[in-house]
């Protein structure tokens, strides 16, 4: 017993001392790595900057980078630049990266048996928009591993290639635990051009309501909400007709909410009577409709908006009052406040929010 205790005591003591020093050494190493990377940035970013500003050519830049840096370090340097440069400059940066051979390096890594290396390569090739990786990425999409599916789908979305969009949506919905909001986030990577494809999907659904079930095995409202969010994100005006058609079908409440949110973002009028949405039992639908009206300044709904000033939900009242304010009906609001009519409270609030309460003082 004593022997074992003494042995374990030695072992634990060793581990304590070892860990104590490991922490400090590890900390120092990480600090030095950080310092080194900063030094490299200071040294090479001006060169890349000169290249981006056409002061030196691609060959010369490549030569300077390749002579002194390995591929992994080069990637460390390039990664932050993807956030820095705009879409126009990204192509120039990508051309330089291609020239250095980084794409080929990571294409090779994509065939690695090591999961970490493989996924890292997939992710990077996505950022490079490398179409040569697509075949392999499509293969990886058939994996059962959630991390592999998500990383691959993300990489494909960044390449912008939509040949296998059905399969991507299907895999994400049915083989991962992602919610439709997360899938939307991924799909916007395909860029604005995805919208036409989505309109096409919705049109097929409108022609045959079993379309989504048979093609994606997903509930209609989830897919519709997802697609509509993307229209809103890109402020895609061509989707207005599609959204109008959908509204006429009396869709699921969730779909109505997403259509209204997208309409708020697009801020263009749509030829449809909004009365029933202003009078809807769901406060989100009411408030989003009022918000939409405040964006398009449609005075046809003034009377209903006025009634909504006394709604029990704050956001409904708020957006109704905001819509009235945006319609320029300041006198109406002042009248409601001074005569203490229903809705005086929220009108008073909107005036205060816009620093107009001094008018009230004058009138009083």
């Amino acid at each position, binding site marked *: 017993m004593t022997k074992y205790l003494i042995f374990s005591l030695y072992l634990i003591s060793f581990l304590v001392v070892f*860990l104590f020093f490991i922490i400090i050494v590890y900390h120092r190493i990480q600090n030095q790595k950080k310092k080194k990377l900063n030094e490299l940035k200071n040294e090479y970013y001006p060169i890349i900057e000169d290249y981006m500003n056409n002061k030196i050519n691609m060959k010369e830049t490549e030569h300077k980078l390749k002579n002194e840096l390995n591929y992994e370090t080069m990637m460390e340097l390039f990664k932050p630049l993807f956030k820095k440069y705009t879409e126009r400059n990204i192509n120039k940066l990508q051309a330089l990266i291609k020239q250095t051979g980084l794409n080929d390096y990571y294409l090779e890594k994509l065939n690695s048996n090591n999961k970490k290396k493989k996924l890292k390569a997939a992710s990077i090739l996505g950022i490079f928009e490398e179409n040569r990786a697509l075949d392999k990425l499509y293969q990886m999409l058939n994996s059962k591993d959630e991390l592999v599916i998500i990383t691959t789908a993300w990489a494909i979305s960044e390449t912008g290639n939509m040949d296998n969009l059905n399969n991507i949506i299907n895999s994400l919905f049915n083989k991962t635990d992602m919610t439709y909001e997360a899938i939307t986030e991924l799909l916007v990577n395909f860029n604005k051009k995805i919208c036409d494809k989505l309109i096409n999907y919705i049109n097929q659904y409108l022609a045959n309501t079993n379309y989504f079930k048979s093609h994606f095995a997903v509930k209609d409202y989830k897919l519709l909400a997802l697609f509509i969010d993307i229209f809103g994100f890109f402020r895609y005006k061509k989707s207005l007709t599609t959204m109008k058609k959908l509204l006429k079908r009396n869709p699921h409440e969730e779909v109505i909410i997403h259509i209204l949110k997208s309409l708020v973002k697009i801020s263009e009028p749509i030829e449809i009577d909004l009365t029933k949405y202003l009078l809807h039992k769901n406060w989100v639908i009411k408030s989003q409709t009022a918000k939409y009206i405040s964006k398009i300044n449609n005075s046809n709904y003034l009377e209903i908006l006025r009634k909504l000033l006394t709604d029990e939900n704050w956001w409904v009242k708020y957006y109704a009052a905001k819509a009235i304010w945006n319609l320029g009906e300041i006198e109406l609001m002042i009248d409601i406040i001074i005569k203490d009519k229903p809705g005086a409270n929220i009108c008073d609030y909107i005036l205060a929010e816009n620093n107009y309460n001094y008018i009230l003082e004058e009138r009083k």
Partner: protein
Amino acid sequence: MIYKILLVLDYIAIFYFFLVNITYIILNILAFFSIRKKRLKKKILDIDKPFSSEFYKPLSIIVPAYNEEKTIVDNLKSILELQYPEYEVVVVNDGSNDQTLQQLFENFNLKAFTTNYKAEIKTEPIKCIYKSTSHPNLIVIDKENGGKADSLNAGINMSSFPLVCNIDADSLIDSEALLKIVEPFVNDWKVVAAGGTIRVANKCKVNEGQVKEVNLSKNFLVRMQVVEYLRAFLFGRVGWASINSLLIISGAFGVFKKKHLIRAGGYNPNTVGEDMELVLRLNRKMKEFRRNHKIVFLPDPVCWTQVPKTIASLSNQRKRWQRGLGESLFYNIGLFFNYKHGTIGLIAFPFYFFVEFLGPILESIGYISLILTFILGYGNQQIIILFLISSILLGILLSLSSLFFEEMSFRKYEKTKEVIILAITAVLENFGYKQLNTFWRLIGLYELIVGNKEWGNQIRSQFSE
């Protein structure tokens, strides 16, 4: 006779020692792999998500405030600057008798407001509801004093959005913390609640409600708590969460799906451990509702809080935590060794019961009986000494390992000097501080038995600029 009693007690102490340390070592290993996995995922999926926020569900932040005149303005400024697409902030003034409400009036242009307040969860009467004209998403509820849980329930009643986040009025959260803590709700439909990490803000430089520079306090007691928080969050909660057995989400920073929160009945106002009690009940109710669920912990989204600087306030806090723990466990005793609740019922709950709740008694018995055995010359004295030394060394090892997890993941303390100080603190806390903690927890247990329901006074100070 005495010899026999001491022998039994020694065996209990040894059994307890093995139970605690084996569990902690397993938790440590689980936490290590969990953090490594998260790191790997972050490395692989290190994707810039400039649009991410736009699709996240709207969220209501509830800030219960009782006598928070010194921190409420900074805290609210920080919350109102958070990166999140659509959110509202509901501050609940819980009958403060200082200038909390006055501070809110002066800084946020409040206007009294009439609204239909739906009391889905019963609370103390509401005196008035205010809206800010400078921030339309800010609501202030002024209510009769009813305690923290009651304030949180009032905030839930007032909230409009599907996700509810509770943040303490004496805490600051990182600008991206909300996006990070909501991410699991987006990436996994099973998630019903998520908790973030709490870190010590004492001596950190704060500007416009954000922690700009992380510094280590010179106060010895605060340093001890830094190590303690690292241990509790980086290996305790990460470890439990990795086997889907998280029993607590800190009251200072957590997000819940509102519909489940209401279905579960909201926070329990009859306990001072309302945060733990809620998570336990949520786990229980989700099973009853047959809802496949996950309660997750994220070591990354950070909430900064000021920890007690004096022995008196720290002991009050620890006694309260112990009472809260006991109350939470007893309110949810149905989970105890209940196989229907899987690892929660069979491992996590019994562990919390025997180690966290009864731990102070068993530890104290252990210390006393071993010392007595040694003094009275019973048994093998060499073994007793070796045993005591190894228990202290294991404690040090566990504290150091959480410091190592911090280094391999977040590295908030950048200066080497501070890391060395923390490592030394991790050693020193085992000599006196841990034993003191056991003593406070023991008093906490006694207070629970005699029915003490006091929250105790908390001394607040402003964040350093």
